[in-house]
């Protein structure tokens, strides 16, 4: 295999791995946005909370990774449910902008609390796959990356099944289409919305727990929200499959830009994509066009 091809293949593998994380974060944000029309700017900070909790439990308390994963996922689900039930729900019916501001406020508060509770230093912890790697078709891929890709696919598939076949999933879809109509048809919209938040919280926890060992456990993890926004826009706002595809594409674009384009482009590639997509094709890859009737 030529070195060019090898580099390309390596970049592709890395891109898909990073992109899978973006996809997972994007999924969580789209879930909430579809159900409640709140664009959750605090999603990245849910990741931060999850990552720090996992670090504290693994590194400080010495618990096993396999115990911490469900524990933190459950705790984040409860936290997200509570956030909606106690705080975010109060602004229903106000302009979209109020939701943006409220979630930014929540993000600030969570970030502040994390700094106060866990300190401001970066941390790291080991997972069962740390350090190991597998060679596939001549490309070396870290085992952790493989696990991430696998779990993202699994979560996406589970979500699809959930929305397609379960009563609750269908109720969630109904509530996201038309809250009043769903309410009149006996869907308990408020509780369903909070459950969507809980679901998104669980995905955030998983993303946080897997992402932190790759980068570092740090409050700057929240910046992934912005990358996920680029993924969502690229995939077409409000589309779950679009969020997954968009996430992986953003991951790939970043990796390629880092090597094939000039210095510094890698860091802003995602944002350039976001701007270009919104100017040239606001509906993204899989979005639907809407017009307003007068």
């Amino acid at each position, binding site marked *: 295999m030529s070195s060019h091809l090898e580099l390309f293949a390596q970049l592709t593998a890395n891109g898909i791995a990073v992109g899978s994380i973006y996809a997972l974060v994007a999924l969580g944000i789209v879930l909430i946005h579809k159900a409640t029309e709140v*664009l959750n700017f605090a999603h990245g900070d849910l990741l931060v909370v999850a990552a720090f909790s996992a670090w504290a439990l693994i590194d400080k308390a010495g618990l096993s990774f396999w115990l911490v994963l469900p524990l933190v996922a459950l705790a984040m689900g409860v936290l997200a449910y509570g956030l909606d039930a106690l705080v975010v729900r109060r602004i229903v019916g106000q*302009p979209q902008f109020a939701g943006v501001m409220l979630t930014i406020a929540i993000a600030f508060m969570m970030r502040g609390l994390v700094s106060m509770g866990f300190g401001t230093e970066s941390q790291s912890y080991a997972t069962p796959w740390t350090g190991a790697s597998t060679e596939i078709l001549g490309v070396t891929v870290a085992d952790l990356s493989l696990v991430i890709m696998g779990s993202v696919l699994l979560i996406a598939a589970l979500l699809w099944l959930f929305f397609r076949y379960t009563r609750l999933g269908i109720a969630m879809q109904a509530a996201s289409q038309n809250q009043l109509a769903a309410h009149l048809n006996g869907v308990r919209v408020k509780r369903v919305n909070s459950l969507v938040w809980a679901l998104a919280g669980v995905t955030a926890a998983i993303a946080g727990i897997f992402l932190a060992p790759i980068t570092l456990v740090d409050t700057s993890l929240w910046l992934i929200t912005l990358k996920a926004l680029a993924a969502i826009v690229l995939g077409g706002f409000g589309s779950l499959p679009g969020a997954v595809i968009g996430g992986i594409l953003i991951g790939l674009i970043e990796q390629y830009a880092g090597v094939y384009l000039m210095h510094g482009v890698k860091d802003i590639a995602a944002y350039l994509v*976001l701007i270009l997509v*919104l100017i040239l094709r606001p509906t993204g890859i899989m979005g639907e066009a809407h017009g307003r009737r007068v």
Partner: protein
Amino acid sequence: MRFDYHTAYRQGFALLPHTSDRVLYGLLIALLLAVPFFASTYLLGELGYVLILCIAAMGLMVLTGFTGQVSLGHASFVAIGAYAHAWLMTQGLPFALSLPLAALISAGAGLVVGIPAIRVSGLYLAMVTLAFSIVVEQVIGLWRGVTGGFMGMLVPNPELLGLSLSSPRAFYYVCLFFALAVLLALLNLMRSGIGRAFVGVRDSEAAAYALGIPVKRVKVGAFGLSAGVTGLAGALMAHHIGYLTPDAFTLLLSLDLVLMVVIGGMGSLRGAILGAILISLLPRAVAALKALLPEAMARQSGMEIFVAGAVLAFFVLFEPMGLNGRWLKLRALLESFPLYRRDTFRRQKSYMRSERNR
């Protein structure tokens, strides 16, 4: 209660219709003019900074409060104004010429960022501005020839007609002059045709079109105006900081500006000013608070951002009309004293109205 009896339309146009208002605002301006004679150098610098933030917040208010276009990236215009001004001055341009030019350059950048506003609005536009500001921050870091990159850039001292304006007292007056000038100009603009067109575009695009308002031009124009004003604030900020580096203009500054506008109260220049004052006082308040706390808690660093978040959440949840709304309520209470009803400003219960189809 107070009733106005007008015999000419002109009387209704007055900015300060009542004698009591004129006296109060007159006293306020006299106080602001007198401050340098008894305030410390440090306090003057801080006050100048608050005035600069007031200008920037008014710039953002024009865009977000009046035309309803959310920008989460206004720090980029502060940065463009600051760097343009500093660069022009290092090229030998005098302060008096470089300042308006920097504002114009920033306005030009605003027009460019405003172009996506033709096609997208709401959340999408917010994301475009957010992405733009991250890109600008990065570009400033990489463009070493002009901006000095991450190493930074020294800002030349301001001079006017051979007089140095770099002393804290002189610079305070410069800031005060521009803050008042911008306030008056925007007040006049917002109560005239252009301001009405802004509000029209915000509240109903369909109706705005039907009345002959060129919606797209208004939207892009509002971006330009807003960026220009914010750029002016940036140019002044350059002198306040003295040494420019990209990390002075991050996302956090953008969010601070949005905080000022939201906490101040949408659609009111008074709100922008009140918001700017409150947000710039917040770190001081937290520092004062820390002095009272046990040392273990006071050493923690997340307190500032936590308090900022809590204040923002409080306003979004309980006072969506912001400080300006609180002010109006207080006035209504005082003016209609025995007759004031608590429900005058109460919001109606509402269902979620979809904004997906805007």
